[in-house]
Every structure is written in C-alpha cells, then in structure tokens.
C-alpha cells in the first residue's frame, strides 16, 4: 500500500529555471493494485515516480509505503521496499557485468551485502531456473555480458530482476517506450504476468492512452504537477481513448490537446 499526501517538488528553487514539478499530489493505492499513470510531457509523471523511489526528495508532504514513512529516505534505503524498471535499458542494468552478476546484484536488494561469493552454485541454479521462465533461451547465456542483449531482452531480464528480492511496490517508468511495438507487446504481457503472479502493488507510467486503459485496474492522469483524473472500476471499463481525451480536455479547461504523443496508440 502506498499513501501519498500533498507532496510538492520544485527543481532549481530560487533560480531563473525554477520548475514546480509536483504541486500537491495526493494518492492512496491499496495493496495489490496496478495503477497506470498518464500525462503529457512535463506533467510530472517521472518526477512522481522519482519521488516514490527516492531519487527526488519531496520538500513538502508525506510518502508512506505500507505504513512506513519514507519521505526522507534516500534511494538505496527505499530499495528494500521498491523495485524498479527504467525506461532506458542501459540505465536499468549494468551492461559491463554478466547477466548472472546483474541478477545477483538485484537478488541482494534490501539485504546486507557480505563477503560471501555472489554467485554460489545454488544461486546460479536458481537464476537459471528463473530466467528460463522468460522463454527467451537466456538460461544458456548467463555468462554473457548484459550489453550483448537486445533492448527487449534486457527489459525482460530487468523485470525478472525486480522480482528476485521481495518488495512492496513495483515502479515501471515507461519501460516499453524504447522498444519496437512487437517487443513492447511482449514485455507488457510479461509485466502483466509478473505483477499478477507476485501480486505486486504497481505503478506504470506510460505515454500511450491505449496501454493505460488496457493494463492495470486504475488510471491516473497528471497535469502540471497535479492529479486531474482518477478512474477505476466500471467507470474505467467503459472508457475508450476518445473519452479519455475528452475528459482530459475538460480538465484542462477546454484547451486543445497539442501534444501528439498522447494520441498515439
């Protein structure tokens, strides 16, 4: 469960480039809910996810994960509760390390790292079994460097890595945006499966309204640092992309949507 109360984030406070990225966001996500987050460029989607992950510390408001106040926690400390997959496959994994080393790194998330070998025999076997579940034939390439994998393969492994250690929430930051449509479809299907199997409380930021409605069980729209739309259940089931656009336009006071990327998909 995630509870967010009135968080504010400002970049470059007191400089000419000051940007008030989040202006009082309130959101409560019950255990096991899968929320999709949409919004135009600069709406604050990534900042919101960063604030949940600890990359950005909110200057006002409160963030609690499972009742624990994490507002002041830095990223490494929050990692015991938060698993993430990044938009850029290069950011989410260590390209210079092998697949199994990346997995070992993720498996120790939220745990003390000691001087014992990171790749003992039983752990290697466990990694091999888990990666075989992806059905990509990667179980025979555990010694290959992560950088040798394609973008889609790397996002699939990143998703798997997010589940190797226990976590309360899963944050997906446009994790299919850098992939071709076919691969994106595959990774999204995998996402759905992994979220359901592990019953993870999930937030997925996406650029596509189609994806936002097709996946998960609740959709939230951000605009200029505020939540302007929050639909779930039957109301959401009856929505289609044009409805969503109309709702969005209404929220913005009837102004036209100029951001083409919102209309795609």
């Amino acid at each position, binding site marked *: 469960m995630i509870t967010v109360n009135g968080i504010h984030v400002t970049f470059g406070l007191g400089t000419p480039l000051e940007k008030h990225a989040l202006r009082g966001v309130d959101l409560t996500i019950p255990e096991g809910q899968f929320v999709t987050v949409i919004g135009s460029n600069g709406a604050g989607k990534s900042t919101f996810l960063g604030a949940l*992950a600890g990359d950005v510390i909110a200057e006002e408001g409160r963030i609690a994960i499972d009742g624990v106040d994490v507002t002041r926690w*830095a*990223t*490494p*400390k929050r*990692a*015991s509760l938060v698993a*993430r997959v*990044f938009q850029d496959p290069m*950011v*989410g*994994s*260590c*390209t*210079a*390390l092998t697949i199994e*080393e990346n997995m*070992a*790194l*993720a498996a*120790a*998330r*939220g*745990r003390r*790292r*000691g*001087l*014992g*070998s*990171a*790749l003992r025999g039983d752990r290697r076997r466990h990694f091999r079994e888990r990666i075989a579940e992806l059905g990509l034939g990667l179980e025979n390439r555990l010694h290959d*460097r992560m950088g040798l994998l394609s973008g889609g393969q790397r996002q699939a492994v990143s998703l798997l890595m997010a589940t190797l250690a226990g976590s309360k929430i899963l944050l997906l930051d446009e994790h299919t945006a850098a992939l071709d449509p076919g691969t994106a479809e595959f990774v999204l299907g995998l996402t759905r499966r992994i979220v359901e199997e592990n019953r993870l409380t999930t937030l997925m930021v996406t650029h596509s309204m189609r994806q936002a409605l097709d996946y998960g069980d609740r959709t939230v729209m951000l605009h200029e640092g505020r939540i302007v739309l929050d639909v779930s259940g039957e109301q959401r089931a009856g929505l289609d992309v044009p409805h969503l656009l109309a709702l969005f336009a209404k929220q913005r006071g009837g102004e036209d949507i100029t951001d083409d990327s919102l209309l795609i998909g």
Partner: protein
Amino acid sequence: MSEIAFFGAVEIGLVYALVALGVYLSFRVLDFPDLTVDGSFPLGAAVCATLLVAGVNPWIASLVAALAGSMAGLVTATLNVRFKILHLLASILTMIALFSVNLRVMGRPNVALLMQDTVLTPFYGLGLPDHVVRPLVVLVVVVVIVLLLSRFLNSEFGLAMRATGVNARMARAQGVQTDFHIYAGMALSNGLCALAGALFAQTNGFADVTTGIGTIVVGLAAVIVGETVLPARAILWALVGCVVGSILYRLAVQLALSADAIGLQASDLNLVTAVLVAVALILPRVRLKAASKKREAVR
C-alpha cells in the same frame, strides 16, 4: 640485459604490481581517476621506514603503512563524495598535501634503511642469492593479494562496488550505498599503493619523498599493458593482467635503458615511461582502424 638487471626489473615490477592493482580498483572498478597514488606510495615508504628505524616489527610496520595509505584514500573520497569536489582535483589536493605530510613523517627528505630488519631479512642466507630472494618474497605477497582481491571483487560486497563504478544509478536502485562503496574502494586502492611503497622502501633500503612522482603513470601503464596482453573479462585474470603488465613494463623500460645503441640513460626514465604509456594507449586504436580498413577492403 644482465641477470641482476633482469631480476631487478622483475622485482620492481612486482612491487609496482600492487600499485597497478590499486589503480585498477580506482580507475577501472570505481571509474574514479585517482592521482592520490603519487602521494600514498611515498607515504607508505615513509611510514614504514620511520617505524623500522624506531625498531618496530617489519610486518607491523608494513601493515601500518598500508593503513596510512587507506586514510589518504579516505581523504580524497571525502573531498569528492561529501564535498562534491571533482574527483581528479580532490585527488590532486590530497596528493600535494601528502608531500608535506611525508616530510613531517620522516622529519627529513629521506631515510636510509641500512642495518634495520625488513620483511626480507629472514629469507636472506637460505641459499639463494639476494637478488633472487627479493622478487620471490614480493611475488608471494602479490600472489596472496591477487587471490584475496579476486575473492573480494566476486563477493556480494565487491559486486556492489563494481556496480557502483559501472552504473551508480542502477546500483542505488538496487539498494547499494554507492557513497560507502566509493569510500571503501578508495581506502583499499590507496592502502595497496602504500603497501607497495613500504615494500619498495624495504627492498631498496631507503624511503625518499620524491619516489612518488609519476607513480600513477607507472600504475596506469601496467594496467593498460596488462589489458592489452591479457584481454580477459574474468576478474582474476584481469588482476593477473595487472601484475603481468607491471613486470612487462619494467622489462621494457630496462631493455630500453640498457640498450647502449639507443643512447638512453637512467635520467630518461620518465620520458621513456610517458612514451611507453602513450604507445600502449594508441596501439589498440591503430589496430582497430587497421581491422576496419581490412574489412572495407574485403567488401
């Protein structure tokens, strides 16, 4: 090259292999260009020599020297991590400060170790000539350290340190306290360099404040030569590459200086070093270009 000159080159190569391992940790593992080395190497020599003159056990003296080097590494890491000073500049500040510190430690520019017991003393007179004993003892120390370091870098802690250098953002998202790993890595790196300085003082019989000049270049040369002759990805082999690179580098320098035909003399050492490092850095690029040209020709 005479037999004595050969063993001498191997010996100094093995001593600087520890510097190469330290430089590998900072430059390669942590991606932290660290020039502190130029100060921590003579610091190790100074601390060790001063303690030996005071009658301290040579192994304890060497250990204390290594700890002193670790402190120097922590100073650089603090300047960078805590106070956000550019890593290169932070290390230069520590390096230049250490010059004064080393003078204070010794109380004079150099200390001679003539009658003092060193870690080598028990091994002299066991039947082998002294110029063979010295590299052998240092070799044992280097082998032990390579094995320990390989184990360390393959541990969970070491893996997190490697991730810190490769992709700090991802490492933090996986719960790695990247700042802490930078402190630990820099302490380890400079501890090794100071240990090298301590061994240098004991094998050569003196400590001098000026021995530190160019240490970083020599260490980097060893790392690069090692990567060129032993392009391995497994940690253990990369570390062995550092050691091999350090020895090869010394042999190359010895060869260059002892070939009368070229007309080089001992004072040309730093020039030869710089040229060798430049060549080692340029060669892989030239090879790459040649390879791509060949491919084009095939097409």
